[in-house]
């Protein structure tokens, strides 16, 4: 009763009692009027008049079957055939068992036997029939999208789940279908035209559903979700759609993008399955032709992995999961290679993922700006390390650190670096900065100004990855740099490619002209080392001498050299 009261929200619903027998009419009316407003009719014709008149108000009809003029069956048939009236539930009053079946077939919601049940039973049946009918209307009105007649999203998901319960072994595809540049379609041709396009697409989807027994909804604006048994011919399907649009809508340049998550994993939520299809759809960037993309598990896992790295970074900094390793650079001008400096390289020892390569996280952090935090961390660590070595061995091993593109735009860059150097009791010339060549070409004026300022402060600047960007000779001449660092790519093929060897010779020539040393990194073999030495390269970095090592390991390199010096 509580539930009824709440549902009814003070609305007193109207019930029509149709019976030719006055006593029955009065008796039933007396019972029902306890909870409802009751109107009466003594035959089918009179009942139909009242039903039409009270169409919107009427919640239920209690209908006797055997009546003069128009009987109950005839009235049931009329109601069933009328879309406006068939929503009104009818409870049939009957004393005949055989009449029950026929009434139900004609759409009766329930029946009440004669002589009447106890009033509570009658009221309960009346209430339940009204509730069911109202729920049905609410569901029907909210489950479909008004424009296209396809399901709305929440109902769609519900029906998909229901489908899975009954068809456990069926291989299903989740599809997300979007119209390319739909907002422009709307803007250019007007909303009415846009709606026509959406309705036409919905019709096409319905045709597909009829063939495959699938389900579909309009998720939002121009985004349609389709859940259908697996098929292989989506390319053809799209071409077919595009063709139908060309013939149905004049001057139509409508194209689609389709994201497919094939043979969905039934163990994940339906929402997640469509997230995957949506991901495939979003990654499909072609905007002028119809195309489709299939969800790729590996791609997704990579995205998840990347997302994890990004979200874990702050914690990693706090918990000191990042460690700075050092790779020595050796001067090879003399007879014996001499330790000249080192490059600081970051390593991430992730508590769950283990050692994460910088190649995996640096590009991510460059993209979202987090790389600045990392750079600052490395800068401070490197300066402190230079100081430690200085204290321990009485010599400076200059360390080069990476200055990312985003750092260049930091107005406080010089101040920050000065502070780091100063607080460790170092001179700026003990500290090397590496700036990638492509940063120079991006915005050469600003970077040249910045590098000039840094060098004025005493810092030494190495141009990293030289040869990978597009520096003009003109710009090179004007560049304020202290060393050229060859792109690793050349070193890799220097022994096998005549062209690359020539390139390296050329770069060395440029360096001579600029009067700066050339550093080759990524040197792995003796052959490479000897060749580079022969053509005049100044400094070498790479596995041939040492991989990047921890500060403790690096100590040994310094100590080894000191021992050798003593021997000499």
């Amino acid at each position: 009763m509580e539930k009824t009261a709440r549902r009814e929200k003070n609305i007193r619903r109207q019930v029509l009692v149709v019976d030719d027998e006055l006593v029955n009419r009065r008796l039933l009316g007396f019972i029902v009027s306890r909870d409802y407003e009751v109107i009466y009719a003594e035959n089918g014709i009179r009942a139909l008049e009242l039903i039409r008149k009270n169409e919107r108000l009427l919640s239920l009809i209690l209908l006797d079957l055997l009546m003069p003029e128009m009987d109950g069956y005839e009235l049931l048939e009329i109601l069933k055939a009328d879309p406006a009236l068939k929503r009104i539930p009818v409870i049939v009053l009957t004393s005949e068992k055989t009449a029950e079946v026929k009434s139900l077939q004609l759409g009766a919601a329930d029946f009440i036997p004669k002589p009447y049940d106890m009033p509570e039973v009658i009221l309960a049946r009346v209430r339940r029939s009204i509730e069911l009918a109202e729920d049905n209307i609410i569901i029907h009105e909210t489950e479909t999208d008004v424009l296209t007649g396809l399901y709305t999203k929440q109902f769609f998901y519900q029906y998909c789940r229901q489908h899975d319960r009954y068809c456990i072994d069926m291989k299903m595809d989740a599809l997300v279908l979007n119209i390319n540049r739909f907002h422009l379609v709307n803007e250019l041709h007007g909303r009415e035209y846009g709606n026509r396009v959406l309705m036409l697409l919905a019709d096409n989807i319905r045709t597909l559903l009829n063939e495959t027994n699938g389900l579909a909804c309009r998720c939002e604006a121009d985004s349609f979700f389709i859940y259908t048994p697996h098929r292989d011919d989506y390319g053809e399907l799209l071409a077919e759609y595009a063709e139908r649009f060309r013939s149905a809508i004049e001057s139509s340049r409508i194209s689609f993008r389709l994201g497919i998550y094939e043979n969905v994993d039934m163990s994940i939520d339906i929402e997640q399955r469509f997230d995957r299809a949506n991901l495939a759809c979003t990654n499909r960037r072609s905007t002028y032709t119809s195309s489709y993309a299939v969800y790729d598990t590996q791609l997704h896992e990579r995205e998840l992995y990347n997302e994890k790295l990004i979200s874990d970074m702050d914690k990693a900094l706090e918990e000191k999961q990042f460690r700075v390793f050092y790779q020595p650079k050796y001067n090879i001008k003399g007879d014996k290679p001499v330790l000249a400096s080192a490059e600081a390289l970051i390593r991430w020892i992730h508590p769950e993922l283990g050692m994460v390569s910088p190649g995996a996280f640096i590009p991510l952090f460059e993209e979202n700006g987090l790389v600045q935090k990392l750079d600052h961390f490395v800068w401070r660590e490197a300066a402190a390390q230079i100081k430690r070595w200085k204290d321990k061995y009485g010599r400076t091993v200059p360390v080069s650190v990476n200055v990312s593109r985003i750092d260049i735009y930091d107005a406080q860059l010089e101040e920050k670096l000065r502070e780091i150097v100063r607080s460790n009791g170092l001179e700026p010339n003990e500290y090397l900065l590496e700036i990638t060549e492509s940063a120079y070409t991006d915005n050469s004026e600003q970077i040249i100004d910045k590098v000039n300022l840094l060098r004025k402060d005493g810092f030494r600047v190495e141009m990293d990855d030289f040869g990978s960007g597009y520096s003009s000779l003109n710009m090179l001449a004007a560049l304020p740099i202290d060393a050229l660092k060859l792109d690793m790519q050349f070193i890799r093929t220097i022994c096998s490619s005549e062209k690359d060897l020539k390139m390296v010779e050329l770069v060395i020539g440029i360096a001579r002209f600029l009067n700066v040393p050339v550093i080759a990194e990524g040197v792995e073999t003796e052959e490479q080392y000897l060749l580079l030495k022969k053509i005049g390269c100044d400094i070498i970095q790479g596995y041939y001498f040492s991989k990047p090592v921890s500060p403790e390991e690096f100590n040994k390199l310094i100590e080894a050299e000191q021992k050798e010096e003593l021997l000499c």
Partner: protein
Amino acid sequence: MLTIDSLREYGADVDDGMKRCLNNEGFYLDLVKSVIPDTRIAELEAAIADGDLDKAFETAHALKGMYSNLALTPLSAPVTEITELLRSRTQTDYSGLIDTIKKKKAELDSL
């Protein structure tokens, strides 16, 4: 005078009838009184006499519903019996049943 007690004495299942009227005595008695002027028993008798068993069935069926709802058992029992015979259009002598019905109706009228 027609009262709950006199109806009970007459043989009506008063408790059943009263429940159906939400135990409203006045309403129940009012409904019972309203069937007294009803002339359909005479119509039923005439239809049977005319051999119009279709009309006789309809009339009997209507009376059955009415008397049963009011729990007027002395009337609803023979009326139900005659309704079932008429449903199958049985050719038989209905006079005995009609007499019982008329007698019970007269008893009701005299309460």
